[in-house]
């Protein structure tokens, strides 16, 4: 058990953060880095911008999946007597709550990262049209 800002918890503060907002952070990083990469890369005429964007997507999808698994595996260890679906409705354990929420959110944000990875594959990269 660790004692921290979150009270007495079985998981450390890092584990709680990674599990709960890892997926969302990966998404934000993907959007910001992609937009930045595209803007600078197009301005400076870097070759291989498309490849870099694809690599970025693959990398952050991996991160999203990893954080999802990370959270999923900790659902059991923080479990109370109840099924995950009941925890979602009744909130018996805060950590369990955070890990369940984190698993679902990582799944959704990973899908969004994937969606954001599609445009560089099909659309004109640097020009408007």
């Amino acid at each position, binding site marked *: 058990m660790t004692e921290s800002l979150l009270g007495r918890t079985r998981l450390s503060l890092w584990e709680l953060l990674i599990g709960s907002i890892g997926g969302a952070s990966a998404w934000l990083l993907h959007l910001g880095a992609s937009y930045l990469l595209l803007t600078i890369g197009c301005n400076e005429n870097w070759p291989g911008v498309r490849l870099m964007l694809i690599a970025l997507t693959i990398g952050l999808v991996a991160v999203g999946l990893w954080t999802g698994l990370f959270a999923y595996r900790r659902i059991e260890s923080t479990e109370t007597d109840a099924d995950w679906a009941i925890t979602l409705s*009744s909130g018996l354990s805060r950590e369990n709550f955070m890990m369940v929420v984190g698993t679902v959110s990582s799944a959704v944000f990973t*899908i969004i990262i994937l969606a954001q990875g599609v445009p560089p594959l099909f659309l004109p990269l640097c020009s408007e049209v």
Partner: protein
Amino acid sequence: MNPSTLDPRGPGAGAIAELWWVLFYVSLIITVLTLAALGYAIFRRRVDWRLPSDEQDRGPTRAIVFAGILFPAIVISGLFIYVVITYRAITGPGDTPFTVRIIGAKWWWDVIYEYDSPILNARTANEVRIPVGRRVSIALESRDVIHSFWVPRLQGKMDLVPGRTNRIWIQADSPGVYRGQCAEFCGLQHARMAFYVVAMEENEFEEWIAAQRQPAAAPQSDAERRGRDVYLTRGCPLCHAVRGTESLAHAAPDLTHVGSRLSIAAGVLPNTRGHMAGWISNPQQIKPGSYMPRIPLEPAELQDIVSYVLSLR
């Protein structure tokens, strides 16, 4: 003539209209299903209703996760791929040897046909004529504030932003007149900044543009000659151009071939004798705040200048 996005006449608007119908039908299905569920939830008979236990809530919660999160995420992702494909179809370069450079100003459109060799260039205003079946490249610029070029039956819109050049293509697959209107609030007379795109068969287009390249026709009748004098001496050359005379300013629409245009005052009035007279005699009545001043003219002068202007075909 109604500028309906759902009555497309070219591949740009056509692809978007298809996308619309897909989005519409998917939304319709979702709406019907959801409202049916809501209706059932509201109206279903409850006999001996008891507060559900946590155990009983498992089902609804699982349903929300699978039907409410994963399923919509997959549907929307699928839709998104279709969106990207549509997007791809409406972008890309044009395939004409010329680019139409359109420079927006408050509240009219300066239209310049630019070829590789400048002797082929032509200039008009508030009207864009294009050959049928060709992807016409349009370059959009602004000399004052942000405007937006929108001709709904042919293509989506693109803004004219001062300090940058935006590009778009438009293509009409059948001859016709297509109405467009400025779609970014640009001040007082934003509502009265329209234009027409006229699609013609390719050979007719070549004839038309050849005529546009020519300087203005010399006045034929006395009235037209007098009208030209009125034109040249009452301040019009300060802003307008009539190529072939010493009037060569471009602060206002190029009038070299204004007589052959469908409309005047940026798509606001039909190009007829009566309307032209009304416009010239008091532009502030029709477009209050526009930059064309009211210049007092004797009735005879007015008639003459209208004759002259309409002779500029």
